[in-house]
């Protein structure tokens, strides 16, 4: 068989692979129904709040020595995540899936089995939990960024995660990438660096205690 004939067949074969890839993306269902995710997030929030209230009502000190953030103001890193990747508001399911694939591909540093995505509903609840004032929440709510929580893979070093930060920033629809120490260094986390009115940008960071 000549190589020219094989090349013509290869063209048809690759065309079909590309068509299959496109149809797979087009019909890929969302991981969960939005309403189900919202209800689950609400239920989870109620459970968490209930647990925190129960802890607060216990006699004696309730400081968790393991979690350095548990005694401070609310933070997006309270879950113990090692990195948060914020996506721009309005990212489509396909775009979210694309970013997820990119994040999970870094299995040397990121635990792919613990990549958690908070959709719009869950992100709103997280913002409500973290933000200090109704004004801040009200400003952020219409354009709340969704987010991925990432956890370090076993054996991964902080340096590996720090190296990934600028690379994750290059991914499409990624608005910001934060590490826990970013919150400790800065008083606020810019949530909308590409929006026009910087002065009124809402933040997800804990309020300054000073």
């Amino acid at each position, binding site marked *: *068989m*000549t*190589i*020219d*004939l*094989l*090349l*013509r*067949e*290869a*063209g*048809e*074969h*690759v*065309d*079909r*692979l*590309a068509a*299959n*890839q*496109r149809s797979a*993306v087009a019909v890929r269902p969302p991981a969960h129904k939005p309403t189900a995710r919202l209800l689950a997030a609400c239920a989870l929030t109620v459970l968490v709040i209930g647990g925190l209230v129960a802890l607060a009502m216990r006699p004696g000190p309730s400081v968790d020595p393991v979690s350095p953030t548990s005694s401070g103001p609310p933070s997006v890193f309270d879950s113990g995540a090692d990195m948060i990747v914020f996506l721009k508001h309005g990212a489509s399911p396909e775009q979210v899936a*694309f970013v997820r*694939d*990119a994040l999970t*591909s870094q299995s040397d540093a990121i635990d792919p089995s613990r990549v958690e995505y908070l959709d719009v509903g869950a992100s709103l609840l997280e913002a409500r939990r973290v933000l200090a004032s109704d004004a801040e929440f009200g400003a952020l709510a219409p354009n709340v960024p969704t987010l991925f929580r990432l956890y370090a893979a076993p054996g991964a070093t902080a340096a590996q995660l720090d190296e990934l930060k600028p*690379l994750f920033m*290059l*991914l*499409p629809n990624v608005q910001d990438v934060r590490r826990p120490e970013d919150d400790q260094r800065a008083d606020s986390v810019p949530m909308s660096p590409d929006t026009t009115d910087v002065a009124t940008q809402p933040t997800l960071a804990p309020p300054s205690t000073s």
Partner: protein
Amino acid sequence: MQFGTFVHDHGERIRRALVAYYGVEVGGEAADEALAVAWERWASLAGMDNPAGYVYRIGQSKARPHVRWFARRRLFPDSEPVMSVADPAALLDLVRALERLSADQRSAVMLVKSYGYSHREVAALLDVSESVVNNLVHRGVTRLRTLLEVHS
């Protein structure tokens, strides 16, 4: 030229070129994004001499940030050919060999030899001279023959 006419005339060629260069996943996604950008900016693109070449370069800029993330994946996923072919094993060997060409050689070889576009059409799309296309195709096919040890 209307955008629909442009997509009808050039859309498939742009997609094939990007898929040949970057693989099925990244190339396909980049083609979608490039055509979306072309739609948004069609008023300014329509008057260009070579809008297809411009949209192809948009696709390249869209694809580049993703290349690193898909570096460990196959450009053309392992899949048995669904159409009727004389020698499926030989076809898969060729696809694997295509992955080992340089991206420039692979796109030139596939556009010319697999899809039958002329050197002139490919040169316009890739924004290179016809002699460069000729050179890429010649070297690419020679390397394919070496990789496959096929002598037609």
